[in-house]
């Protein structure tokens, strides 16, 4: 494997005493000095700044761009308007998941895709393999930096740096070519924490200036940095899937409960359509549920879930939840067994711990 890459914010993380780890080939802070639990609270109560430059960016342009995307992804991109964003899984023909992505529509012939860091190269190869018509595909990932400003104070912080009225920007909408503190940015009202917030993209050259400006503007709002650890816990609390856990080659978006992002009836045939229709018709042998521990014990990925001696599934993500002060997990379970039992057991080392099956998400912010 090649040497881990540094994002344009690497020096900022060192100055803030971030604990650096190698995540999917990127050197990023897993947490800063306050620790993961406080960083989660900061995000929910005020605001937190995340470096998410590891995310990949791919541009899709050309007169056949829409048609191409319609074939490539499972959601219905024809419903997407200019300056709006759509979440979509991307599937193989067997319904297994290549990646889950965000699609930013600049106009009918121009889209900006955001993909998972670990999948960027695989995605780009898959996108190329599926090319059709007049489409210009570009992997912009090496040129782009990205920060996520998340939490209820985010709008007030960012508004100081731009003349764009942010209150008018709705969820899953964006503005391109926006001047933020003198840096040309794409700003979207999106995030991976379950809070209000923004994701801001800029070319690497402007990254340091952007970070400093956001940091300065955040001071009177008690903005704090947050690392990958907090990000993972926040998305688990908000029950957002993470590729490699709730989604993967052997898992379909229907299993992960993402039905509303799967346009089975789409007019343009798409990769995975037949397999997903078949799965929807025949029913699922495993489906994603929430678990809440009834005894103290940390449910973690890979642990098996049982009813008595019978194994009924496995945990895909689990953690202590600082927001709920509970131990929670997402788990793929046999729906038939869940129908008969509200209470299940999680096998942790050589003991079974009682847990309750719950609806997802665990956490939803008050609007």
């Amino acid at each position, binding site marked *: 494997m090649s040497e881990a890459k540094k994002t344009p914010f690497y020096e900022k993380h060192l100055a803030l005493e971030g604990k650096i780890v190698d995540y999917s080939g990127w050197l990023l802070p897993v947490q800063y000095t306050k*620790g*993961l639990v406080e960083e989660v609270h900061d995000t929910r109560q005020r605001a937190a700044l995340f470096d998410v430059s590891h995310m990949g960016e791919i541009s899709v342009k050309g007169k056949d761009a829409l048609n191409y995307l319609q074939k490539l992804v499972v959601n219905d991109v024809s419903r997407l308007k200019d300056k709006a964003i759509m979440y979509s899984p991307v599937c193989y023909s067997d319904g297994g998941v290549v990646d889950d992505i965000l699609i930013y529509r600049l106009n009918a012939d121009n889209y900006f895709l955001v993909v998972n860091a670990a999948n960027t190269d695989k995605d780009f190869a898959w996108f190329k393999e599926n090319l059709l018509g007049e489409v210009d595909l570009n992997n912009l990932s090496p040129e782009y930096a990205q920060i996520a400003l998340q939490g209820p104070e985010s709008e007030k912080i960012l508004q100081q740096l731009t003349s764009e009225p942010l209150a008018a920007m709705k969820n899953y909408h964006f503005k391109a070519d926006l001047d933020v503190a003198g840096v040309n940015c794409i700003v979207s009202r999106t995030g991976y924490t379950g809070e209000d917030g923004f994701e801001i993209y800029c070319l690497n050259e402007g990254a340091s200036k952007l970070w400093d400006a956001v940091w300065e503007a955040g001071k009177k709002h008690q903005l704090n940095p947050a690392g990958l*650890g907090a990000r993972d816990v926040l998305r688990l609390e908000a029950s957002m899937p993470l590729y490699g856990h709730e989604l993967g080659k052997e898992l379909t978006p229907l299993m992960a409960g993402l039905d509303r992002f799967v346009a089975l009836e789409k007019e343009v045939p798409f990769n995975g359509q037949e397999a997903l229709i078949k799965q929807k018709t025949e029913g699922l042998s495993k489906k994603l549920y929430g678990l809440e521990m009834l005894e*103290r014990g*940390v449910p973690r990925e890979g642990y098996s879930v049982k009813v008595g001696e019978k194994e009924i599934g496995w945990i895909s993500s689990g953690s202590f939840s600082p927001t709920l002060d509970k131990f929670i997990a997402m788990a793929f379970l046999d729906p038939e067994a869940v129908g008969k039992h509200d209470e299940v057991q999680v096998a942790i080392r050589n003991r079974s711990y009682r847990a309750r099956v719950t609806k997802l998400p665990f956490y939803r912010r008050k609007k």
Partner: protein
Amino acid sequence: MDYKIMDGLKYTKKHEWIRQEGNIGAVGLCDYAQDKLGEIVFVELPDIDAEVEAGKSAAVIESVKAVADLYSPLSGKVTEVNEELLDQPELINSDPYGEAWVYKLEIKDESELANLMDKAEYEKFIVEEEEK
């Protein structure tokens, strides 16, 4: 980064400490290890009367992100466990050498103490670990 290290304790390379009082030893996790793990949220204690072996896992300490074994510094029989940690595992973060002892054991073989480090040796060991 400065880590707390106490006089009078013996240390392992896996960052456990033991405080000897007669033939009894109290065992816990070092400041260095709790800092690396982050916020501790769960502790699995050994059973009373369990026979633990030097260098073998005797308890499990879990932070939000990680699971870590606590390896017994010495061999012996467990005489007492710290049940406070079941409800307040975060004591390991706040007071690793005091309130957050994990278990006590009846020392089986005093000669095993020779395999452990004293404060000065452990200090040096940590510096080397940090340089890695």
